[in-house]
């Protein structure tokens, strides 16, 4: 408002607000909005459409935030999502809103659809808007399905793989459809970039356009009042949409956003499983909204499968689109539309039963529980390792010292040693190395195929001869030297006393200093000892002249020897 209210200035508008109002036509726009009436009066029933639209806005805004960090590449996708989830300020919250918000959007859009169905709001003259609404609902579903893949974690990868394969099972066009979705013959880089382009570019543009059209058509035809009101009654009870209805919309909208936010906080954001591993046996399950279809497929095997994946969904979709023309009820009253509402109710019940069946079956399935537990550990490990920074090739497990150790093992050790319990090529098999069983095997048959046999040591150790109790005691003694916490001290002591009677001490000293024919047994199998063997097993305190294992001291860094030591020590427990 102009501070200067002089009548001479009244004709020419002044002030920024008026200037804008004049340029934009703000008053006309405002009048158009304010002119909207709700026949039959404002109601909570009518809030669902705008709450769904509001959730779409939430998705759009959080989606833009996520896109500032998300990287749509097979090597970067999981890493960037893990970064958002575990490191970025409020990352878990924004991602959580986006993920849980999409579930809320499906629920609210579904309720909106049911409300329209119940009120008969799909009927003349709103047939077209009903179809536009169905299209919007379908787009929300495609949104959700494409978004599910983007983190490139196990569940997204496998769910999408199954979906693409289902598309591939369509007659005639299946193969091409699957290639089109995947961006090639197999899953890979282009599968992800395509899903991303669809999810973050094409669908937002299409859905926004269609939503504007939906709202335009809605404004043109207005609310459908409750069936019990006659046209005259509805007109008499009409209230202005602004602010009577909009206030209710705001209340319900805030409530839904609040529920989403609380869920996000309670669950600390959306789940993120371990990075997609195409070689794993993953128990693929779709997101909750697709579970009924998943379960439906279980009833149709082999060539009949497309009944569940295509034919039934296609029939339901066709029926839904033609509903405005099939419904011949005289009025909007439910009793005049009994067939439509019964069919819809039965359909809804079927969805619920199928969904619950799928959940209940998995809840009872021990295989499923085990797979979930394994994935939980793998996922947590991956995310912990990701905190160190994900290597450029996207393989976060490279950060795990054991992974690196395994690579060194494959390169330097596997040529002679084995880990499978099948015997090494030139050295001992280290499966369960230094466990009681391994030690017992060695003492009773040092040149066996699992121990020093393959090394073909000249004048090696003789097999220990004794009663079972004596062998037990000697095994326990060697076992105790490894520093094992569960060693039986008394029995180990008896074993120690047997060293001399059994002639062990002819070749083996026990003081950590004597350089005898055989390895000095003090601390044999401890971390320090294993590290020394890896560094140079030919040391006089160790295998001396009889050693055949190449020195690793100059080939591995001290850190790598340390990693390998841990790797070897860990074999005991496996």
């Amino acid at each position, binding site marked *: 408002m102009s501070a200067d209210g002089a009548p001479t200035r009244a004709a020419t508008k002044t002030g920024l607000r008026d200037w804008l109002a004049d340029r934009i036509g703000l008053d006309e726009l405002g009048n158009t909005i304010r002119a909207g009436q709700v026949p039959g009066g404002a109601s909570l029933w009518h809030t669902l459409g705008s709450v769904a639209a509001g959730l779409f806005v939430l998705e759009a805004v959080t989606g833009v935030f996520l896109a500032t960090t998300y990287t749509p590449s*097979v090597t970067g996708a999981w890493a960037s999502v893990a970064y958002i989830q575990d490191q970025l300020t409020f990352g878990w919250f924004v991602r959580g809103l986006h993920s849980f918000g999409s579930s809320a959007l499906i629920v609210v859009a579904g309720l909106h659809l049911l409300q329209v169905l119940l009120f008969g709001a799909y009927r003349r003259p709103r047939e077209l808007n009903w179809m536009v609404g169905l299209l919007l609902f379908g787009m929300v579903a495609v949104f959700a399905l494409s978004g599910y893949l983007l983190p490139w974690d196990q569940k997204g990868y*496998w769910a999408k*793989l*199954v979906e693409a*394969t*289902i598309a*591939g*099972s369509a007659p005639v066009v299946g*193969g*091409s459809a699957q*290639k*089109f979705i*995947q*961006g*090639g*013959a*197999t899953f*890979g*880089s*282009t599968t992800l970039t395509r899903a991303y382009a669809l999810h973050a570019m094409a669908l937002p543009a299409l859905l926004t356009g269609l939503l504007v059209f939906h709202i335009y058509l809605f404004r043109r035809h207005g609310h459908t009042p409750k069936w019990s009101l006659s046209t005259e009654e509805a007109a008499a009870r009409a209230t202005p949409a602004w602010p009577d209805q909009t206030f209710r919309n705001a209340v319900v909208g805030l409530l839904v956003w609040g529920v989403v936010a609380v869920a996000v906080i309670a669950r600390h954001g959306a789940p993120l499983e371990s990075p997609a*591993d*195409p*070689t*794993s*046996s*993953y*128990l*693929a399950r779709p997101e909750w909204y697709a579970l009924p279809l998943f379960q439906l*497929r*279980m009833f149709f*095997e*082999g*060539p009949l*499968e497309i009944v569940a994946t295509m034919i039934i969904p296609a029939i339901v979709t066709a029926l839904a689109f033609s509903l405005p023309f099939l419904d011949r009820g005289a009025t909007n009253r439910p009793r005049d539309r009994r067939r439509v509402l019964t069919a819809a109710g039965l359909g809804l019940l079927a969805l619920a039963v199928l969904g619950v069946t799928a959940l209940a079956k998995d809840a009872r399935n021990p*295989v*499923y529980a085990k*797979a979930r537990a394994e994935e939980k550990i793998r996922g947590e490990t991956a995310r912990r390792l990701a905190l160190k920074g994900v290597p450029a*090739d996207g393989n976060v497990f490279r950060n795990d010292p054991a992974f690196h150790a395994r690579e060194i093992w494959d390169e330097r050790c596997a040529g002679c040693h*084995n880990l*499978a319990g*099948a*015997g090494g*090529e030139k050295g001992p098999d280290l499966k369960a190395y230094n466990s009681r069983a391994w030690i017992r095997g060695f003492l009773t048959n040092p040149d066996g195929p699992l121990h020093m046999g393959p090394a073909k040591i000249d004048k090696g150790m003789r097999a220990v001869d004794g009663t079972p109790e004596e062998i037990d005691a000697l095994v326990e003694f060697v076992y105790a030297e490894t520093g094992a916490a569960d060693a039986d001290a008394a029995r180990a002591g008896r074993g120690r006393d047997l060293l001399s009677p059994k002639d062990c001490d002819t070749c083996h000293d026990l003081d950590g200093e004597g350089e005898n024919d055989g390895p000095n047994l003090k601390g044999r199998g401890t971390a320090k000892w294993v590290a020394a063997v890896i560094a140079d097993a030919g040391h006089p305190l160790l295998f001396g002249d009889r050693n055949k294992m190449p020195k690793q001291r100059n080939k591995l860094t001290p850190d790598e020897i340390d990693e390998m030591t841990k790797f070897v020590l860990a074999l005991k427990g496996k």
Partner: protein
Amino acid sequence: MAVEPPDQRRAFLKLMTAGLGALTAALAIIPGFGFLCGPLGRRTGRAGASPLRVAAERDIKPNRPLRVTAVGPHEDAWLRMEKVTLGSAWLVRTSEDGPIRAFSTVCPHLGCGVDFDESSGKFNCPCHTSAFDLDGRCLGGPSPRGLDELETHVEGRDVMVRYQRFRVGTSKREPIG
């Protein structure tokens, strides 16, 4: 009655506008369509070209299938990677020193990874409960065919496998990639 010349002119202009608009649109739509459908005709991934070492022969015990991973070079659109896990295979031999057979772990139904169940001695798919015997034959469940056998041979001490993927969901075995 004859049409007024300006109207005739305008009718022509309208037609031309529509035509030019269509031409402009075609300029974007035709290459765009080709761009989108490009991957349909293109080979992606060069995996499976040569046999890869997957295990030591002595590690394969009778009736104890061993799950191995095939690590090798892989091309994926614009990426070329030297050491990538291409997929997994089950190595099976049914007698001591008998021949080794390799089966892809990819379930021919919808592509989940097939597990081996030691108690029943069968391969099971965790997703939709297809089951297979040690010869890869389908024993039950929705799988349209048996497990896909991979070319394998023993080279010295090593088991070599030519890793390949096959189209899933079809009764006929069709290599892809």
